[in-house]
């Protein structure tokens, strides 16, 4: 089975940065409706900082790469998304460890470690209308696909699809975490911005990792 090399992981991050930049206004618009109109701005600031790191530093270990990415997001994003995505990548890197590549199964473990980091940091529960609602199904879908013998590319496509489904599923939810929760019933009918950026994260993975 093909292993994911360091340059693919970097390509993933660059692709994520590109998708964020392309969807910056859209994410901010979604955040206008049920938040404070900055999610696209925040994520774009953070991912641009990540790209600068990728442009200027050499990495030979997955752990180093994602430790740096996580710290960069923590230091540059702020808001809720900074600690959440920052912790995601920090935990992803710690789990991946001192290696130069990941096989498909180890990638799934790293995805899960990232997800657990988000849960530890933000205490989201399923249905709270957060990025968790895209991240958890995507992670499960990926691991289930790998477990049942799919190829990396196919599994990532399933993760992407599950993330997008999870993102769409946030629309009817009543927000219980984050700023959208202040709206109570009025949060219903709006798509969660963080779930939307998480769908981009898995779209980037499906495009760049295999």
């Amino acid at each position: 089975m093909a292993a994911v090399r360091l340059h693919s992981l970097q390509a993933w991050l660059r692709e994520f940065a590109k998708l964020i930049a392309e969807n910056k206004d859209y994410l901010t618009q979604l955040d206008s409706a049920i938040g404070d109109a900055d999610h696209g701005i925040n994520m774009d600031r953070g991912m641009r900082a990540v790209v600068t790191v990728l442009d200027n530093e050499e990495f030979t270990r997955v752990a180093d790469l994602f430790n740096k990415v996580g710290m960069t997001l923590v230091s540059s994003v702020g808001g809720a998304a900074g600690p959440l995505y920052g912790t995601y990548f920090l935990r992803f890197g710690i789990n991946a460890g001192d290696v130069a590549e990941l096989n498909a199964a180890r990638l799934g473990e790293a995805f899960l470690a990232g997800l657990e980091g988000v849960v530890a940091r933000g205490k989201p529960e399923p249905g709270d209308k957060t990025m968790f609602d895209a991240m958890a199904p995507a992670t499960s879908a990926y691991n289930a696909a790998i477990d049942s013998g799919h190829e990396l590319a196919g599994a990532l496509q399933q993760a992407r699809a599950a993330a997008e489904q999870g993102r769409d599923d946030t629309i009817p939810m009543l927000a219980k975490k984050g700023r959208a929760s202040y709206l109570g019933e009025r949060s219903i009918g709006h798509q969660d911005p963080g779930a939307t950026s998480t769908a981009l994260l898995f779209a980037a993975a499906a495009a760049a990792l295999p």
Partner: protein
Amino acid sequence: MKKLINAPDAVVGEALLGMEAAHPELVVDHELQIIYRGDAPVAGKVGVISGGGSGHEPMHGGYVGMGMLDAACPGAVFTSPTPDQMLAATKKVDAGRGVLHVVKNYTGDIMNFEMAAELAVAEGIEVKSVITNDDVAVEDSLYTAGRRGVGVTVLLEKTVGAAAEQGRSLDELAALGEKVNSNGRSMGMALTSCIVPAAGSPTFDLGDDEMEIGIGIHGEPGRYREPRGTAAEIAERILAPVVGDFPLQRGDTVLAFVNGMGGTPLLELYLMYGEIAKLLDARGIQIGRSLVGNYITSLEMAGCSVTLLRLDDELTELWDAPVNTPGLRWGV
């Protein structure tokens, strides 16, 4: 976008240049974006810091100085600052007696301050946090993000800052902070939206005959929208839930704080204060102290909030104690 800025991304950094130029008694770290009082760390004193998204000025940077904060960490507009900033500020203001973090209850602020506190503790600094969550517009529940921190934050920074000057311990200050928070309630409303510079357009649209009740300080939509009312109607709308939430009793004494969201003239804020005072009087609640003006704002949003803080002798004395910051100054 009708703003006095050069570029949306540069707003906070450039405003800090202005803060530094206007207030030689403050020290600004431009790289990390931190505002310090010039004499930090103050020997024998617990450090008190706060921080949060920019766009609420004078909070928090305008409350740095003797009798209030030792440092403030401004984030991007409406975006929590990062743990780096809070950690650096914590290290710098620690005079060996620990550092209190004043945190408004927003997911982002909580998580970033939490990370900073973890890092500071790992470096051997004693850190405690006090969280403000006074906004009665938001339902409080263990299973949600809970109430937002709004107007009480200003009053807490003032009173806890005064207590820190007296030499109280970190534990005492944390306890005092909780006392202030649990004796304060707020509610706000908006007549217009604000415009986040980097977004470039209003966060929400309000018809010319509408108002939004239960608004936060980040352009978040409120709890409900209704036809624009008179000042008297609005006062009742926002005061009743505040009084009812405590609930306040006849004979209670409060600090009554009418705050402008940034785009409402002081003339109107005084008019609103008059309405609030009338309503408190009718309920038999005494006004012990008052504050009227733009103290915790939401960029250029038109609207106001009301905050009540139940006073006792201790809080009154701490409120009256000398303070010397750009935003609040008396007694020195």
